[in-house]
């Protein structure tokens, strides 16, 4: 059994695979709506990352500048961490340029061990008075705190999942206002925060959360607001904006579906329901950065920092925190915060409205149904074209939405889901086609077998029919008075034409030619019966040729249920005298080609209708005495009615001309073969439509010379 005909394949692929297709569509729709249930959410994330890698955000305004403690800074000023007095110097330098706010993306949980009072720990053997003088100096932390206090500075804090030593559950309150409900149950929750040392921490204008969450190791979303304990905490960037705005209140707007937006003054930032935003990343850009070394050296143009949001962060390799983002595998954490600020300023955040989620499911449903409905009726090529077209449309829609509106439509998941469905349907459709082909092949085989059997039977029938015809070479052994030629060719395997010749006694022979009103098998059966009955009537010694004809007519008519008839031309030749008696029952008359210069004669006299036409018709005989060398020629209408390609009948005129041409001296075989050849040449390939028989007899006189 061919694989496509196995039971399980038939069950699965039944009804052109549509039940399977619908089940599969339901499954992929479920996955589409709840991808993480099946661990397939990465496909969607990969699609969103692909958009950003392909067309990263263009950086329009530069609201944020990063003062980077980079390799150059470390080379000039030595290893990290620097004494906090240097940091204070850096902040002071920046503050001189009057920035909008300064954000310090550096956590300083412990007191600076490089404070003057602690120097004796590193430099043993200092004089007592030096130790005394050192300890009277203000600590580095005090110096930094003083500087920080003087400016609009935001310090970063880190959100922690668990409370450990050195952390606390509270945070200095940031003024929040909530509108439309309590956002706290909705937003990101931390159990504790890690702060800078108390002395520094308490003097600054603001505190912002530095933590970013990763999805599968990549930063894509950032919470703009979170909770620590029961307090709301702003993100680092948000807090910088608030401080820059002069310490305004942050409004959290919540709606039925969750957090909708964060507002600072007249700036509103739309958020996801959990208070986070999808950062639209631009490529890492050196233009965002100035080196801390340059700032300290006073080499940085004031305009570069003036009225900007200045972030201080560590970017030197080996020190800094790098994060993977959709656009690059390594981006300094501080740059991510800068990117967020650019997003907010240019209102260029990405979003994924609920409607888009439904649109994806809708596309999948519509595309899936289209595949299920059309694939069983279309060619594989058309199906492939349809699938490619659908995927092309979905990808185009996704790309346009991203480019024009910053809306994230997941083109990958529906395309892959449709691909799965398409493949399954294709396999099933092909299996069905294959099964169909197999069954056709079997049918053809059966028909061929049947045809072969029938052909075999017909071939056998043909052998029997042809075998029942006498052979001129052996019919009259040793009789030199006769020259005989006979030919019969049915239009199909068997036919209804007949001829016969046999001796009645030593000197008389009987010959006949006939044509049944029918061809093929029915004709051949009637032919065999007619021929046998005629011969038996003749051999019974009924007498003259007309008596035999009447006798045969009666016998053949008796068992003729089908109402067939047969034309018959019979003759009895006395070989001693040349007397030919003949009787024509509706057959083409016999042609006499006399030896010498007498004209060719068509013997139309005597006779009657074909046998079995008129009951008891009194057939009468005619007679003609042949002279030595005379030839008689008997044919059936298959010869005279043979058709040319121009649908012209061969006809009597051409036939008679041929007989004249072949000549009176020709042998029976020469004449017979000439007729055959000419008719076949005349037909010129046109299929023989009627049975054909030729009988030629040349009487060579009583002595046979």
């Amino acid at each position, binding site marked *: 059994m061919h694989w496509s005909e196995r039971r399980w394949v038939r069950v699965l692929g039944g009804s052109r695979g549509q039940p399977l297709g619908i089940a599969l569509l339901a499954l992929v729709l479920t996955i589409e709506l709840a991808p993480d249930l099946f661990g397939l959410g990465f496909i969607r994330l990969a699609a969103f990352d692909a958009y950003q890698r392909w067309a990263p955000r263009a950086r329009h305004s530069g609201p944020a500048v990063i003062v980077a403690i980079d390799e150059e800074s470390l080379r000039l000023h030595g290893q990290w961490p620097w004494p906090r007095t240097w940091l204070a110097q850096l902040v002071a330098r920046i503050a001189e340029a009057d920035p909008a706010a300064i954000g310090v993306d550096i956590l300083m949980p412990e007191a600076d061990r490089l404070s003057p009072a602690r120097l004796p720990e590193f430099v043993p053997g200092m004089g007592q008075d030096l130790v005394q003088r050192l300890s009277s100096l203000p600590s580095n932390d005090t110096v930094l705190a003083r500087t920080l206090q003087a400016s609009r500075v935001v310090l970063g804090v880190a959100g922690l999942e668990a409370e450990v030593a050195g952390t606390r559950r509270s945070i200095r309150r940031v003024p929040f206002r909530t509108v439309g409900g309590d956002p706290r149950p909705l937003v990101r929750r931390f159990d504790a925060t890690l702060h800078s040392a108390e002395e520094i921490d308490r003097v600054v204008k603001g505190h912002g959360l530095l933590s970013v969450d990763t999805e599968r190791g990549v930063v894509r979303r950032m919470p703009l607001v979170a909770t620590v304990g029961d307090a709301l905490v702003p993100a680092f960037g948000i807090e910088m904006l608030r401080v820059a705005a002069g310490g305004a209140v942050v409004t959290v707007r919540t709606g039925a579906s969750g957090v909708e937006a964060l507002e600072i003054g007249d700036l509103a930032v739309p958020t996801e329901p959990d208070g986070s935003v999808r950062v639209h990343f631009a490529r890492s850009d050196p233009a965002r950065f100035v080196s801390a070394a340059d700032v300290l050296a006073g080499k940085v143009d004031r305009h570069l920092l003036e009225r900007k949001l200045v972030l201080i962060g560590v970017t030197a390799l080996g020190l800094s925190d790098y994060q993977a983002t959709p656009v690059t595998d390594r981006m300094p954490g501080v740059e991510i915060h800068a990117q967020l600020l650019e997003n907010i300023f240019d209102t260029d955040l990405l979003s994924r409205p609920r409607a888009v989620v439904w649109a994806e499911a809708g596309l999948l449903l519509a595309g899936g149904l289209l595949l299920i409905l059309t694939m069983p009726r279309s060619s594989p090529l058309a199906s492939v074209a349809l699938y490619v077209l659908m995927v092309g449309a979905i990808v185009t829609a996704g790309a346009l939405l991203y480019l024009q509106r910053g809306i994230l439509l997941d083109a990958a998941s529906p395309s892959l889901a449709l691909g799965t469905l398409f493949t399954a349907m294709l396999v099933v459709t092909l299996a069905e086609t294959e099964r169909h082909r197999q069954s056709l092949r079997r049918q053809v085989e059966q028909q061929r077998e049947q045809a072969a059997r029938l052909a075999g039977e017909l071939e056998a029938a043909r052998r029997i029919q042809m075998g029942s015809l006498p052979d001129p070479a052996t019919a009259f052994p040793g009789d030199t008075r006769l020259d005989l030629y006979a030919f019969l060719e049915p239009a199909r395997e068997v036919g209804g034409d007949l001829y016969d010749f046999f001796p009645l006694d030593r000197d008389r022979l009987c010959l006949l030619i006939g044509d049944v*009103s*029918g061809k093929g098998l029915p004709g051949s059966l009637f032919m065999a019966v007619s021929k046998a009955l005629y011969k038996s009537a003749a051999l019974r010694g009924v007498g003259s040729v007309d008596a035999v004809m009447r006798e045969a007519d009666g016998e053949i008519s008796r068992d003729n249920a089908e*109402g067939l008839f047969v034309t018959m031309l019979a003759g009895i030749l006395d070989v001693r005298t040349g007397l030919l008696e003949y009787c024509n*029952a509706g057959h*083409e008359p016999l042609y006499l080609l006399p030896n010498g210069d007498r004209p060719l004669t068509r013997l139309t006299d005597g006779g*009657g209708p074909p046998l079995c*036409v008129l009951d008891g018709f009194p057939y009468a005989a005619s007679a003609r005495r042949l002279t030595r060398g005379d030839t008689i020629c008997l044919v059936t*209408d298959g010869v005279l009615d043979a058709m040319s390609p121009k649908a012209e009948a061969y006809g009597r005129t051409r036939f008679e001309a041929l007989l004249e041409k072949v000549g009176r001296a020709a042998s029976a075989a020469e004449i017979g073969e000439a007729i055959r050849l000419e008719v076949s040449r005349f037909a010129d390939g046109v299929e023989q*439509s009627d049975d054909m028989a030729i009988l030629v007899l040349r009487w060579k006189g009583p002595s046979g010379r």
Partner: protein
Amino acid sequence: MDLRPKRYVDTVVLSPVGRIDHSTSEDFKITLAPHMTRCAEGQDRVILDFASVEYISSVGLRVLMLASKQAKSQRGSLGIAALQPAVREIFDISRFTMVLDVFPSVREGLARLSPKALAAFDAA
């Protein structure tokens, strides 16, 4: 095959067209059958107008033979008229002139079979 039957009182004239051979004779037989059913004593007489018949093979002759036998058994009258020369020759060779009444024209056939029909024919 459309026999285009025309009735003249008690006589129906049927006019087949074209060749009556192996491929058309069965059709000819079937369309002829209902007319032959009514071709009986006291009912219709039938004349086959062969003016448009170009050729008739032995299979076609067989249909005519069977029709003739049916007409005879029903004591009906069946004639055939206006044979083209080629068909006339076939009739001569096969002696079907002895099987059916052959008339030179439809009019002469009507004249022979039914004076009433002839009157209608002439009036038409």
